């Protein structure tokens, strides 16, 4: 509905027209942004889903391997074997801009380039199952990092999509109709004022002519004349 308080002036009308133009432009842009974000989000979330399924299945396998390894040796031995890891993973995080949403991109570095450094123990006192278990975890690490990147991006994009959608709706259903209504109100008010001035002027003109030439008196005499002739 129209805002209850608008000044029906030309200045206000110009202001509102500008506002409407900006709102419509903003609405179009935000709608485009929402559509594009949504497209990318859906692509990403499908990747996210398959990655997650893969990682969850692999972690399950890893856990099974570790249980086997644990069964094959005593707890102290296992603790000692894994107590001092040789390998370390460092992450480098950079930002990627997807439709004004900043999503992280991870690249990872290991401390040593030797892939065998994941075995932080001598092979003499540990079961061979442990080697397999550790290897299986090392194998899924890249996927786990990609999952982290993907899932975080999905979360951030979901939040942004929600925000954008709200803005689009607010513009489309509140802001734009309200402004249009106000513009219509002012235009009608101004037209009405113009008409009323017009009629007033016509009336004044009549009155002034009347004063100058005193038509009505003449008419009266004319009328009398007619009667006499008849």
């Amino acid at each position, binding site marked *: 509905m129209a805002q209850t308080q608008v000044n029906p002036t030309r200045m206000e009308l110009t202001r509102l027209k500008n506002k409407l133009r900006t709102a419509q432009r903003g609405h179009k842009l935000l709608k485009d942004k929402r559509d594009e974000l*949504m497209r990318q*989000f*859906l692509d990403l*979330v*499908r990747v*996210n*889903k398959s990655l*997650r*399924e893969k*990682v*969850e299945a692999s*972690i*399950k396998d*890893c*856990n099974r391997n*570790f*249980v086997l390894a644990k069964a094959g040796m005593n707890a102290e031995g*296992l*603790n000692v074997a*894994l107590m001092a*890891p040789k*390998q*370390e*993973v*460092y*992450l*480098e*995080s950079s*930002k990627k801009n997807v439709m004004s949403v*900043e*999503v*992280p991109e*991870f690249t990872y570095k*290991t*401390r040593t380039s030797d892939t065998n450094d*994941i*075995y*932080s123990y001598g092979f003499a006192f540990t079961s061979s199952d442990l080697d397999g*278990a*550790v290897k299986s*975890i*090392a194998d899924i*690490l890249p996927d*786990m*990092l990609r*999952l*982290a*990147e993907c*899932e*975080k991006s*999905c*979360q*951030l*994009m*979901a*939040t942004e*999509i*929600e925000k954008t959608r709200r803005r689009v709706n607010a513009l489309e259903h509140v802001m734009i109709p309200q402004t249009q209504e106000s513009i219509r109100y002012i235009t009608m008010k101004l037209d009405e004022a113009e008409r009323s001035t017009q009629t007033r002027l016509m009336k004044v003109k009549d009155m002034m002519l009347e004063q100058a030439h005193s038509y009505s008196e003449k008419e009266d005499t004319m009328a009398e004349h007619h009667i006499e002739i008849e």
Partner: protein
Amino acid sequence: MYKIAVMGDRDSIYGFAAVGLEPFPITDADEAASKLRELADGNYAVIYITEALAAKLEKEINHYSERMLPAIILIPGISGNTGKGIQAVKRSVEQAVGSDIIFGNE
């Protein structure tokens, strides 16, 4: 340069130490919450949390969902997959689209 943390019960996470992630064996909810805050404000870009522990930390985890870092990712623990991880993905679809259109038929 960021590091990666893994939180959860001991049995589920000790294997990750071997490949260079930092394990934090915690099962108590309060302790985990304060540890999570410490890690998130520290130098960790990715924090993996077992689903079992994450169930107790929902509020803290949601708190970080709008920040770019850290990424808090749920992983299944040794007790099995509770489906909470995939639930989180589902939730972000629902948030974005309004209804679930990816996992609909599962």
